[in-house]
């Protein structure tokens, strides 16, 4: 009788131990863990007034195994670089043609005078048959070339590592550089905390450079003298937040800016004075804390966004009533 009682006690203890182990194991599964009490809440920043949204996503173009790093719309076609390849295709992805280029392209400029591919420390110039014309001089160890722009006569190279814009001739000769400094308080110089530093020349020949640390767009003469700027640092939809936004820009035919932001990824349109006109794509369409898509647009206002997180070209067309 005594022995039987002891057996029951031992069995109960063993059962309790097994239950504790199983419950502990199940509760510690990654999907059962308690929520992070210190989670950063940004959901409210993703809400965008539907009235502000001017475009809708109509199509995606897959890049397959190519890891895209830059996108440009020019001459009625899409130009994409990545890995060691340049792809030229129709805006619907038709008739893609591939050309081998030096590995590691980061930026791209297509002009009548040629195709310019930016690498970390130098630029390589090709003709329109994709024959190598010239590899331009290396900008040094500190250089991190992030983007290129041109006006048909000069090529402007944004160098995030050296925090300056280097001006080249079409033949690749260095004509000068500027750091965005001027005598006025506004001309503080480029503040570039990360490799997000873009610039663009619009159809009127105006050179605009992003000053990401100031959340500003700055207009320069073609030899690098500041002519004007606008800035808007804010958590609100009409401003830019973080250290490095807008991370990428392009221009529309009328001179309006299309901006692409990292972190809280969104694509917006501003007029030349910095007034928010509309939102092309709201943050809920992108990966949380994603990279800023590279953006380009055509004559009809269709926006092409190279989504680095999904490795696809996303096409946003203006809504019919716009």
């Amino acid at each position, binding site marked *: 009788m005594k022995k039987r009682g002891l057996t029951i006690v031992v069995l109960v203890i063993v059962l309790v131990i097994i239950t504790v182990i199983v419950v502990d194991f199940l509760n510690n599964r990654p999907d059962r863990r308690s929520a992070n009490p210190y989670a950063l809440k940004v959901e409210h920043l993703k809400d965008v007034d539907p009235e502000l949204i001017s475009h809708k996503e109509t199509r995606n173009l897959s890049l397959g195994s190519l890891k895209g790093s830059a996108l440009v719309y020019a001459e009625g076609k899409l130009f994409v670089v990545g890995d060691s390849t340049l792809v030229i295709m129709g805006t619907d992805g038709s008739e893609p043609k591939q050309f081998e280029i030096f590995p590691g392209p980061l930026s791209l400029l297509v002009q009548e005078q040629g195709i310019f591919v930016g690498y970390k420390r130098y630029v390589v110039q090709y003709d329109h048959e994709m024959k190598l014309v010239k590899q331009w001089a290396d900008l040094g160890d500190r250089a991190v070339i992030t983007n290129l722009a041109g006006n048909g006569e000069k090529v402007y190279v944004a160098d995030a590592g050296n925090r300056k814009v280097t001006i080249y001739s079409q033949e690749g000769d260095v004509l000068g550089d500027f750091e965005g400094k001027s005598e006025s308080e506004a001309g503080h110089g480029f503040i570039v905390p990360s490799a997000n530093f873009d610039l663009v020349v619009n159809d009127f020949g105006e050179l605009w450079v992003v000053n990401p640390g100031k959340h500003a767009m700055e207009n320069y003469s073609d030899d690098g003298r500041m002519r004007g700027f606008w800035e808007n640092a804010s958590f609100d939809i009409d401003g830019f*937040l973080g250290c490095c936004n807008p991370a990428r820009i392009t221009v529309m035919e009328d001179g309006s800016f299309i901006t692409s932001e990292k972190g809280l990824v969104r694509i917006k349109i501003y007029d030349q004075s910095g007034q928010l006109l509309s939102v092309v794509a709201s943050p809920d369409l992108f990966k949380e804390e994603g990279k800023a898509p590279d953006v380009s647009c055509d004559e009809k206002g269709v926006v092409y966004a190279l989504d680095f997180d999904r490795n696809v070209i996303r096409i946003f067309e203006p809504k019919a009533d716009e």
Partner: protein
Amino acid sequence: MKKDKVSSRRDFINKGVRLTLGLTVVGTGAMALSRRSGGEEYVWQIDPFKCTQCGRCATECVMAESAVKCVHAYDLCGYCDLCGGYFKPGAKLQTGAENQLCPTAAIQRKFIEEPYFEYIIDEELCIGCAKCVKGCSAFGNGSLILQIRHDRCKNCNQCAIATACPSNAISRVAANKPYIIKGHFTNEKEG
């Protein structure tokens, strides 16, 4: 004859004990010498490139106050006015407590010169929750990171945070390179 046998057994035990003691002394000495001459020692550390800012460093450390603290890579920082690691998303750009992201107000904001602001971590207040790290990674350039501070860490045989870490970001690193700090525009690890 029997006495001789007992005597030899006792000798055997005595010799064995002496040998064991000798080996222990020699072994301990050799271990001490190897440590003094810089032999391989390891400490626990967080790889900031793997960290997902899950918040467990604040809750899982066996220390009453977590040995994990926020560390600022000043050479990487943009010294921004609108700092995603300092301000609550959507807050006004004023330093009132209601606008600060840190739950313990462990980040001090100091004006340097237009338009730069410096952000200094008060380690006594920091609980290693990674909220600021998340904000800096999402909106900034990731200059705020979590690191295990070795003046606080007990270097447990099995680190409780490493066990709980969902991204395997915590591992043993050489004690002569105890920190993994971000820098420049690359993800090259620095000592």
